[in-house]
């Protein structure tokens, strides 16, 4: 572990705490100091749970099992749609500030803390997770650690900022259409959107039930795998959570690429991508000797995901829209009201199409183990930037940052977003695997990290 704990990996911190080289309380105090300083610039945190963190760290230091805790003393933070005992679950909204404080933590947080991790706070996010920018009208924008004048991406913007900015080695976020992969890409860190149904969502605030995933952010692949392994496990309270045995990924991370066949998505996934996005994709594809493959009907899939998102989101918020529409971010409100008006026949069509599309994409995995695609079409835009130009066409940032992520989460595939450290700004690439094969995506990510093709660049803060 480096003397500057803020750039240490979770694995290194845990090893140092396990061995007694440093105490969990010392790590916590250092991290809280850094959060206090850097958050003034990055606006990643909406609440710092400092008293709780100190108490938890002291308990770990006193624990006779300290040496067995895989995340001993590792600070982490969560997007503010996770329930945190004693705090209202904001989900980035003004309306939720009136909620009763949560009586209990989200299940994934309980699992991380059982492994020795230390919660240090709640993180900024786009309102109700309906966002690709990381901007929030109530809490202010989360800011990109590589250039605070730029977006983090969203909706897990605070998670991207906190991990990329060295305020925590681990954070949790949610991904409905790209909200883990987009901030990972713009903030230059690793993110994992697991298979739909793999990680329980119990005691987190929903957005689109049929598309919502929870997952981790980290600055190394090993940290991503370590936290993911810790959070696995069936939970009957989440109807979508699948009863599967634990499938640890960390033992297989170093197996290299032998026997793995990697493809790179062409067609739709190259249209509109900026030179930076294509450069990053090509660098990764070259390192993996990937052949090109076409993901069929990805454009229609993105459209169907769009319609399901806006209608399911509208259904979730219908009563709030009726009761207190003026308390929404106007951009979110107007999209949700429009979503409420979409005829149900079109929603059912979208669901029918999703079934067809899933079967068509899964067939591709007979001939390959993973598929590469850009994570975002561009590097981080400026905060407040409304439009960008893709393929010569000006279009809204807010609606289009998920061009390449939406067709993937639409059918619940597991994806690791890996950062290519381009200058001046990083950009991400998606490693997409077949359902339940997070191990494959993480193994490829680890090989790329070992080769030096991908890495989380350290910003000048």
């Amino acid at each position: 572990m480096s003397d500057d704990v803020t750039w240490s990996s979770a694995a290194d911190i845990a090893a140092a705490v396990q061995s007694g080289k440093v105490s969990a309380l010392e790590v916590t105090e250092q991290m809280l100091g850094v959060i206090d300083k850097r958050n003034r610039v990055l606006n990643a945190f909406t609440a710092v749970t400092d008293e709780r963190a100190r108490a938890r760290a002291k308990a770990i230091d006193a624990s006779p099992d300290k040496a067995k805790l895989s995340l001993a003393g590792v600070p982490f933070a969560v997007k503010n749609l996770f329930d945190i005992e004693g705090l209202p679950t904001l989900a980035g909204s003004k309306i939720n500030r009136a909620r009763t404080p949560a009586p209990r933590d989200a299940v994934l947080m309980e699992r991380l803390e059982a492994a020795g991790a230390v919660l240090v706070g709640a993180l900024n996010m786009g309102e109700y997770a309906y966002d690709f920018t990381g901007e929030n009208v109530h809490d202010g924008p989360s800011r990109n650690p590589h250039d605070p004048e730029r977006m983090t991406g969203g909706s897990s913007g605070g998670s991207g900022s906190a991990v990329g900015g060295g305020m925590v080695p681990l954070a949790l976020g949610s991904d409905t259409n790209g909200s883990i992969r987009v901030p990972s890409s713009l903030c230059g860190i690793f993110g994992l959107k697991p298979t739909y149904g793999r990680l329980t969502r119990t005691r987190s605030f929903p957005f689109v039930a049929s598309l919502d995933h929870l997952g981790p952010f980290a600055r190394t692949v090993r940290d991503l795998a370590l936290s993911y392994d810790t959070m696995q496990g069936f939970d009957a309270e989440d109807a979508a959570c699948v009863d599967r045995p634990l499938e640890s990924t960390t033992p297989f991370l170093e197996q290299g690429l032998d026997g793995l066949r990697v493809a790179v998505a062409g067609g739709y996934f190259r249209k509109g991508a900026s030179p930076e996005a294509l450069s990053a994709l090509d660098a990764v594809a070259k390192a993996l000797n990937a052949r090109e493959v076409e993901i069929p009907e990805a454009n229609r899939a993105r459209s169907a995901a769009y319609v399901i998102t806006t209608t399911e989101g509208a259904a979730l918020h219908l009563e709030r829209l009726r009761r207190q529409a003026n308390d929404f971010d106007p951009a979110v409100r107007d999209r949700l009201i429009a979503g409420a008006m979409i005829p149900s026949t079109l929603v059912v069509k979208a669901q029918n199409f999703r079934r067809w599309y899933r079967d068509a994409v899964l067939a591709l995995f007979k001939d390959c183990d993973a598929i590469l695609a850009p994570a975002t079409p561009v590097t981080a835009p400026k905060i407040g930037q409304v439009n960008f130009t893709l393929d010569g066409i000006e279009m809204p940032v807010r609606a289009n940052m998920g061009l390449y992520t939406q067709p993937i989460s639409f059918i619940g595939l597991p994806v690791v977003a890996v950062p290519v450290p381009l200058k001046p700004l990083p950009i991400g690439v998606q490693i997409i695997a077949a359902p339940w094969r997070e191990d494959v995506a993480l193994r490829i990510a680890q090989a790329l990290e070992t080769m030096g093709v991908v890495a989380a660049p350290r910003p000048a803060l």
Partner: protein
Amino acid sequence: MADKLDDFIDAAAGALDLPLEPAWKPAVKANLEVSLRHAAAFADFPLPDEAEPAPIFKA
């Protein structure tokens, strides 16, 4: 089409008991137009009559 959509939005807001202040209407309409364009992209995709939806998706 534009007028029909205006009428549809007014009727839908009434039927759904949704507030719709005049100032919000252009943005709501723009969003609905985008959604309907997206819907047109898959609505005519040839699926068999037996095609089933995936309301609870299982990967």
